[in-house]
């Protein structure tokens, strides 16, 4: 029996470590540990609730906007503020821009190298690559000369001994199945995506004033609309947004989706690997008639148990019996005992590190082994993320979602059960990107129509002053980060934050098991995964990366000197 330790799997926003037990070439057990402490709750206590967004936005370099959105929503929920329609539309546009950018970056820069062999691309025939590219898409950058130039640059880069971004892949591993031409095409799109992603996020600068930390505002959005004013959201800026949305639709439909389908075709066996949990949850997002009307959301809210798509359960973030966090295996302590589950409004953040001093060989998984708490919905472990969002929408009978899912399954000639897998998770991310760029265009058109009708309000001052607030109140701000259900819970007392708790998507997916021994999504999804060579566990990366672990930029495994680390122990 070998125990493989992969640490870190990501380098951003909470380092993640996976320990997997391999017997007879398959994973028989797995442990997921968040090895970096969080402590937002302590930073926020006593501050002005209207400022919280600016602090939580710093949680992560990737998810800045979604944390800010969850934050302003929880304050508005507590104070019963409804934002003007234009503010809802602008927030939706920022949400969509972030999701589309993040999903593209995930596919090409964080996940593709689990499937694409960079070194093999050097062997590709540029003319055949051109034929391949033109057979799957109308994207214009597809001439033999284009691929030939790129291959030369890649060769110079690799020959210089500076693999850099491509260092530490398991190049030549037999699990890589793409022909050299598909690999070269993917490298071309890796670089094109890098150039493209910086355009779409200009939407954050336009509406949020700056990037990477755009401004948010309790009660609306911090930008005014005035078509003639150079400092406001004017005609020029709106035209720019329109162009960025059109370019995004083109890139997603002509590059991302064709690549996804082409690559998936070579890895259909991964449609039966990595399924893991049978429960899925989405808080939903993209409101069309207000945050308090989840039935109006483009992404519906709900939970699915035991993969039964015929029944979608209601999810209520305010119900003290639904969402609770456990710490049986987490380095915290609760006043009423570590076996209790606490609803986030009652949440406590007291550290209780009992683990080994780093560096260490192995975690004591019988005891506490992670800095992540273990959230449960009605005591069930839930998977969150793009797949959960699509399944909940599918279960609710959303025809837009059903159509793209059924079409993709048909084109790949795989059964619906293939959704419950590593491949399904990666495909779901692409399919929802296609939906989101379309919705984005709709929100943009609605915003223009409102402005033409003379509606320019973006902020409500009602309840801005703390003198108008109740002495005590509580709220929950739910959203969908690219990697899954995200919510902030706030209690306000005498105008100050009394308690603030974040339950982030990677907590749902990457948490340790609960007191009953139920695994969370990462741990469960690794069970049964084949590992051809435990020295090069690319299969573990495929499944864990399919969740888009909360990371911005870790392409593969690095230690601080730039080497990948994983240790093998034979017990």
């Amino acid at each position: 029996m070998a125990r493989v330790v992969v640490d870190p799997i990501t380098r951003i926003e909470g380092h993640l470590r996976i320990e997997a037990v391999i017997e007879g070439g398959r994973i028989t057990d797995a442990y997921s540990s968040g090895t970096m402490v969080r402590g937002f709750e302590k930073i926020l206590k006593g501050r002005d609730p209207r400022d919280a967004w600016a602090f939580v936005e710093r949680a992560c370099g990737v998810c800045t906007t979604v944390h800010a959105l969850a934050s302003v929503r929880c304050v508005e929920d507590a104070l019963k503020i409804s934002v003007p329609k234009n503010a809802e539309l602008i927030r939706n546009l920022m949400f969509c821009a972030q999701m589309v950018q993040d999903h593209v970056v995930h596919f090409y820069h964080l996940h593709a190298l689990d499937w694409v062999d960079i070194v093999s691309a050097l062997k590709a025939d540029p003319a055949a690559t051109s034929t391949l590219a033109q057979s799957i898409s109308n994207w214009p950058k597809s001439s033999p000369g284009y691929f030939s130039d790129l291959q030369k640059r890649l060769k110079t880069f690799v020959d210089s001994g500076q693999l850099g971004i491509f260092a530490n892949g398991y190049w030549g591993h037999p699990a890589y199945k793409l022909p050299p031409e598909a690999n070269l095409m993917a490298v071309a799109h890796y670089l094109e995506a890098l150039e493209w992603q910086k355009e779409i996020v200009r939407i954050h600068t336009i509406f949020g004033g700056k990037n990477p930390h755009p401004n948010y505002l309790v009660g609306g959005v911090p930008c005014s609309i005035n078509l003639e004013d150079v400092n406001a959201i004017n005609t020029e800026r709106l035209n720019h947004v329109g162009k960025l949305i059109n370019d995004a639709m083109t890139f997603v439909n002509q590059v991302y989706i064709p690549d996804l389908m082409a690559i998936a075709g070579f890895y259909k066996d991964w449609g039966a690997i990595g399924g893991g949990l049978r429960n899925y949850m989405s808080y939903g997002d993209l409101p069309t008639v207000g945050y308090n009307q989840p039935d109006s959301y483009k992404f519906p809210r709900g939970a699915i148990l035991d993969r039964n798509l015929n029944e979608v359960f209601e999810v209520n973030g305010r119900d003290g019996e639904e969402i609770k966090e456990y710490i049986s295996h987490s380095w915290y302590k609760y006043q009423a005992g570590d076996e209790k589950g606490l609803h986030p409004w009652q949440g406590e953040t007291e550290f209780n590190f009992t683990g080994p001093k780093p560096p260490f060989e192995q975690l004591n998984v019988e005891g506490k082994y992670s800095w992540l708490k273990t959230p449960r919905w009605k005591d069930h472990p839930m998977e969150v993320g793009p797949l959960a969002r699509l399944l909940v929408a599918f279960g609710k009978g959303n025809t837009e979602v059903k159509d793209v899912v059924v079409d993709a399954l048909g084109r790949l000639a795989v059964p619906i059960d293939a959704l419950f897998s590593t491949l399904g998770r990666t495909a779901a991310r692409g399919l929802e990107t296609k939906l989101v760029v379309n919705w984005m265009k709709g929100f943009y058109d609605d915003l223009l129509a409102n402005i033409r009708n003379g509606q320019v309000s973006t902020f409500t001052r009602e309840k801005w002053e703390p003198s108008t607030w109740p002495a005590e109140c509580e709220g929950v701000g739910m959203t969908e980060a690219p990697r899954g259900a995200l919510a902030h819970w706030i209690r306000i007392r005498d105008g100050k934050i009394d308690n603030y708790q974040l339950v982030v998507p990677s907590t749902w997916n990457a948490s340790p098991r609960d007191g009953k021994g139920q695994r969370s999504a990462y741990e469960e999804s690794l069970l049964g995964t084949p590992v051809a060579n435990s020295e090069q566990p690319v299969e573990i990366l495929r499944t864990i990366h399919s969740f888009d672990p909360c990371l911005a930029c870790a392409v593969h495994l690095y230690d601080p000197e730039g080497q990948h680390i994983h240790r093998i122990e034979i017990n």
Partner: protein
Amino acid sequence: MMSNQESAGILILGIGNMLMGDEGVGVHVIEKLSGVELPRGVECLDGGTGSFLLLDPMQRARKVILIDATVDGAAPGTVRRLTPQYAKDYPRTLTAHDIGLKDLLDAFYLLGDRPQVVLFAVSIPPPREMHIGISPEVERAVPRIVRMVLEEAATGVGGVSA
């Protein structure tokens, strides 16, 4: 390259997470610089831990002056001026944002356009719990870092380099 803005020339980019104490020293330096009148063609940016989001501003600049924390065992507040070429030339940072930034710099080689990069690496103790604000040792180094950064900016693009 698509760009809706003129090249900034020189970009002073502070990197770090202000919620992680000393780790946010780069961002603190940018805050100090925001009160200083900068020469023409020099811009400041609080990069946070922005990773991919920083590609655009970095690509638009001809020279990037980075300020980042490093956990290298040297006395807290020690400042080193480095001119890294590749990802492997960067000092150990231990923090969550290092890979993204280094990856971007390597990506510039493949994208065919690379700014000159000067890094001021500020030694800090290993970060512990999240908290806001920097330690007195690192705080004392901030005016010196500001001075070094401004002197570097004054040398212009392609200026004196190690």
